[in-house]
Each structure stands twice: as structure tokens, then as C-alpha cells.
């Protein structure tokens, strides 16, 4: 999408729910996927995705174009939501399905979560790696996820996080170094 088109889309989305619906349809899956890969917890990913889009909607009315794409803007909100959750929790903890049940009343959604959780548990390699990534500082978790799971370019990550590309490159490098150390420690133990 061109910058001009996106600008127009946001402008229309402020007044038109259908246009906002279009933005949601386009970005729901990438944002949910990103949050899921950050948290490795379906119920939590749902909650944080809902918070991300609600925040986006509320801020849409105040949205001023600053050469940030809608995608980058949504990823930024999602990142803030996830990191804020980590800060409040002082380290990642799995949210039980019981807690998720309180947040969702639709039986279909609950069944869906249960099935998705089972599906997620099959991704053993990912979960093992995620366990190690989760030990990193949130800023390192963010850059690793965006770069290697979401396949974002350094320039895109820089736009999402509002930092210079050089800073992002350095952060990725430090994050990988720390992750490598953690994985090596794990291998030594085994």
C-alpha cells in the first residue's frame, strides 16, 4: 500500500466503521501471529491482540500521519502491549485457560482456544526456543521475534520501534549473542 493510500484509509477509517473493518481484516492475522509468537500462549495472545486493536481504534481519532505505515503502527502498539504485560508480570508466566475463560464468554471461542493450545503444544522446537528467548530482556525478545519470526527487515523494525537502524542492528546482535549463550548453557547441562 502506498503512503498516500494508507493515509487516506486511516482518514476514512476514523469516520467509517467498514473501512476500519478492512484495516482489521488485513492486519488481524499478522498482529495476532506476532503476539502469539512473542507469548507462546493462545489465550494471552487473544487478549493482547484485542487490547492492541482497541488501542489502535481509540488512537485512530488522534492519528497524525508521521510517515509510519499502518502495519508498523499496529506492530508498535502490539509490542508495547506485550512488553507492558511482561513488565507488569515481572517475567513471562503462562496464563491459564481458566483466566482466559473469564475474558471470553463465547463457547466457540473457548473451544477454539483449547484446540489452538493443543496445536501450539505440537510446536516443540518453537516452544523450546521461545523458552530461551523469553529469558531475554523484552527489547531483545522484540527484535528477535520481529527479525526472525516475522521476517521484518531492519528498516521495518526501526520504523516499528521508532529507533535508528543502527540501534536495531546492534540490538539484534546483542540479542543473538545472549540467546546463543543461553542455548549453549542448555546444551552443556544436557
Amino acid at each position: 500500500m502506498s503512503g498516500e493510500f494508507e493515509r487516506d484509509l486511516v482518514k476514512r477509517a476514523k469516520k467509517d466503521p467498514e473501512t476500519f473493518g478492512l484495516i482489521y481484516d488485513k492486519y488481524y492475522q499478522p498482529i495476532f501471529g506476532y503476539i502469539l509468537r512473542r507469548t507462546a500462549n493462545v489465550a494471552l495472545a487473544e487478549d493482547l491482540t484485542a487490547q492492541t486493536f482497541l488501542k489502535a481504534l481509540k488512537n485512530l481519532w488522534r492519528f497524525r500521519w508521521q510517515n509510519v505505515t499502518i502495519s508498523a503502527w499496529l506492530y508498535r502498539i502490539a509490542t508495547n502491549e506485550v512488553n507492558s504485560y511482561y513488565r507488569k508480570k515481572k517475567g513471562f508466566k503462562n496464563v491459564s485457560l481458566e483466566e482466559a475463560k473469564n475474558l471470553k464468554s463465547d463457547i466457540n471461542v473457548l473451544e477454539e482456544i483449547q484446540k489452538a493450545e493443543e496445536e501450539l503444544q505440537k510446536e516443540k522446537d518453537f516452544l523450546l526456543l521461545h523458552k530461551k528467548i523469553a529469558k531475554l530482556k523484552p527489547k531483545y525478545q522484540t527484535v528477535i521475534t520481529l527479525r526472525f519470526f516475522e521476517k521484518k527487515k531492519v528498516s521495518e523494525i526501526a520504523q516499528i520501534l521508532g529507533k535508528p537502524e543502527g540501534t536495531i542492528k546492534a540490538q539484534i546482535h546483542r540479542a543473538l549473542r545472549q540467546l546463543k549463550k543461553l542455548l549453549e548453557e542448555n546444551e552443556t547441562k544436557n
Partner: protein
Amino acid sequence: MEELKKKINQIEKPEIELPYFKAALKGRLLKEHQKMEKRFLIAPLLKPALVSLPILIILILGVLILPQQFMEARALKIAKAHPEIQKLIQEYNIRPTDIKLQDQKAYLLFMPEETPENILEVENQKRMLLEIASEKETLKKSEGVLAIVDLQRKNVASIKTIRGREVVPLTSQEEQLVKEVVEKEEVLKEILPPTITIEKIEPALPEKLRLEKKGTEIQIAPPKNFEKRAKILYKSDGKRWMVEVNLQKKKIEKLQLIGNQ
């Protein structure tokens, strides 16, 4: 490091889709959007209202308050220009203390300016009894003046002396109480000649009177919680004295020689 990058890239990532949740969230977001839309539709209507509110207040002030102040100032100017009022101001040191507007008329209350007084100090204080000649009537034994200014004709319609009995009348019991208080006071017997006789007993006007709107009328009212006082006037051998009694405290507060008859 390159090996680690390769490893991370090769790991299969969860690609989970939640259609029910996606639809439920969309519904919630659209509902929220409608709520916000309503709020923001009202906002542009409120904005000019909020901007125009101070202007409206200024206009109301301009229409209601400023002309009132202007009218009061004009009435005061008219009253002060009147020769009778000018004379009272010069000779008896009266000052405007209150003003009220009613039916194109301004009611101005003039009262003698307060001066420090020594109790039981016998002096000729003319200001306690005003005897001023006017064109229509003679102002006698007054302590204040009410001037009514006709704002349409731009002149002083009337000048009335304010009498205590009109504002704070005395009951017969109060008059009796005054007599009892002065009779008990030994100092009075030393100062006043034995030949004195009571000329009259009248209520003393409170020093701070005010104008009060009652319906369509403007009335002179005493201040709230004032202490009622009475004056007893004595005469003897062509001389006159005034003794002021505080009825609440039941004691003499002032004795004055008020001049010759």
C-alpha cells in the same frame, strides 16, 4: 552466530488462526467504533458552543452588569452635582454608602463618615443633628440622606432625611429602659445641670445603613445583628444635650452637647 540465525529461521513457527475470535473481536471493535463516532460527531457541535460560551458571558455581562454600573455612576454624578447634596457633603461630611436601581430610578444612601469619638466627651458635634435649609423642605435632625435620582430626566427627584423612627422604631418598653439606664448613671448627674428636662427619646440610626429591595420598593434597612441604640435629648437654659444608650448592653455610650436652642 550465523549458525544460530539459520537455526531460528529453520524452526517451524506456529501459524494459528482463530476465526471465531477474529469475528468476535471485529464485532466488538465495530461497536466501539460506533460509540466513538457518536462522541466525535457531537464534539464538533460542542466545540463552537464552548468557544462561543465565553463570548456569550461577556455579552451578558456587557448587557446586564456594565450598564448597571454605568447607570449607578451616572446617578451618583447627578446626585453629587445637586447643590443640596453638595452642601451636606461639605458641612456634614456625608458620603454615599449604598446605591440601588429600580424602575429607571437610582436610590442613593448618604451617611456621615465615621469619625473617632470619645465617649462622654462633651463637644458641639453638629453632624449628629443636621439642620440644613433646602428649597422644598428643611432637613432637620437627621443622620443620613436618601437621594432619589430620576435616570430618565437626569435629575434629583427627591432628597429625604432618614429618621431613626422610620428605620428602627422604639417600643414604649425600650423608651422606659432608656430612662432607667440614664437615671442610674452618676456621671450624668455631675455633668448635666439639675434643671434639665427630657425633650424627646428617639432611636439612634445605626451607623451603617443599607438599601434593600423588597418587591418593587427600595427600603432603608439596618445592618444585620446590629445593637439597637436610643438617643435621649435633654434641654436646659437654652442648651441641649444628647445621651446615647445601648439597649442591648443597657449602658450609656455617648454624651454630647449638641448646641444651643
